[in-house]
């Protein structure tokens, strides 16, 4: 197994542990007011994140981080 796969196996294990560690008492719907605020929610910046990923993809050697993929690039 190459080094990259080892790194990914380790990352996945750490992430699984992180999520397991987050398993506390579920937050009630009426306690989530602050989480839907545009400065906190994930959704509010989803379009912006996708645009930025496209810009970085054209100038760096990696991709990902927003949970999706695109194609084509009007870059140099």
């Amino acid at each position, binding site marked *: 197994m190459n080094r990259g796969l080892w790194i990914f196996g380790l990352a996945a294990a750490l992430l699984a542990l992180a999520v397991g560690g987050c398993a*506390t008492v579920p937050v009630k719907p009426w306690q989530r007011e602050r989480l839907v605020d*545009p400065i906190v929610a994930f959704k509010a910046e989803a379009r912006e994140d996708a645009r930025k990923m496209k810009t970085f993809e054209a100038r760096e050697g990696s991709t990902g981080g927003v949970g999706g993929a695109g194609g*084509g690039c009007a870059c140099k």
Partner: protein
Amino acid sequence: MQVSPRLALTLLAVGLASAGAAPARAQDSPDEPQVAGTLLRWFTDSDHVTVRSLSTDWAWPLAHASGLTFHYNNEKVMIPAVSAPPGSQEAIDAITTASRPISGNAFQDFVKQRNEVEGEYARGAGAVSYYVSSETDYLAQQLGGRWNRDFRQQSVNLSLGSSWGWDAIAPVQDDDTRTGDAHKTTLHWNAVMTEVVSPSLLVRWGLEYNLVNGLQHNPYRNVYAGGTNVPERHPEERQRRDAFVRVNQALPNRASVKLSYRLYNDDWGVTSHEVGTRLSQYVTRGLSARWEYRWYTQTAADFWRSTYTGVDGVGGFLTGDYRLGPLASHLFGAALRADLEAFAPTRTFVRRMTLWLDLERYFNSNNYSANVVETGVDFRFP
């Protein structure tokens, strides 16, 4: 590993067919209004390349927990003419390593337009999407699907997504490269988990995998090898994977901090780390400011060299493209966002608008820098 279009579409169909009947309420927002937004983006870099983007986005909530989204983007790209004196070594270097096609006159600007359309239909827990991007020498299409489900009293959401992209590449005439028509396919999978950890803390983590086949080098670039310059050549297959985690924490006094980390690795030898931070604060009701910093570093692809001793490169592959070399970059950003509901008189349409302005400065270890200005408006329909 070669994945045929039929196999990829079958896998995609299986994924979509598995979209269960259980609605995902953490993602379900029946009260959300119809929203339209438009954006103007201006990118300019230290090589004097400019990209002007004008885009619009629409979201229509429909009956039965379904909805449609539509995205359109038009980009105008301008790559400047070679500015060195004709015949000089500097001009020859610029021409032979150019990332743009040069036919006849390198001392002329190269301008092209790109149009991009994307639509998505979501119903209950599932969604399907189609994407197309067209420019002079590149046509990209993509079919995607995703499914999500809530767990633990809607405190945890799991999303699974997949897409199949197929690109047709038709390089325009170039004096020093002779790449013919080519294609590229991308099979993508992702699994993303979002958890409401506390009344002020959201955590998201995900794994992504891309299998890319086909032409992956810039058809216009050359690299110095064996004392001459030859067209670049990349492997036809690339397996790309990444894992990321994002943490959004609401702070007292109407502020928030967002932290993110991404680890990326591929079978070309590139491993990268990305760390992002965003700090937001309401200045007054309806007006928020945001500061952003991003740090990025990557290792070089195994076959990357600035110059090669022989024309066969490393294992038959050659690239001098800095994007596959060792690289570190920084991005600083600042943004303002104004929800006019807090400022405009009652019962006016202005109250339904949100305005925003975003400024960014990007620079990397290859003496490359860029500035980005974005401004836009979103409108919520009654």
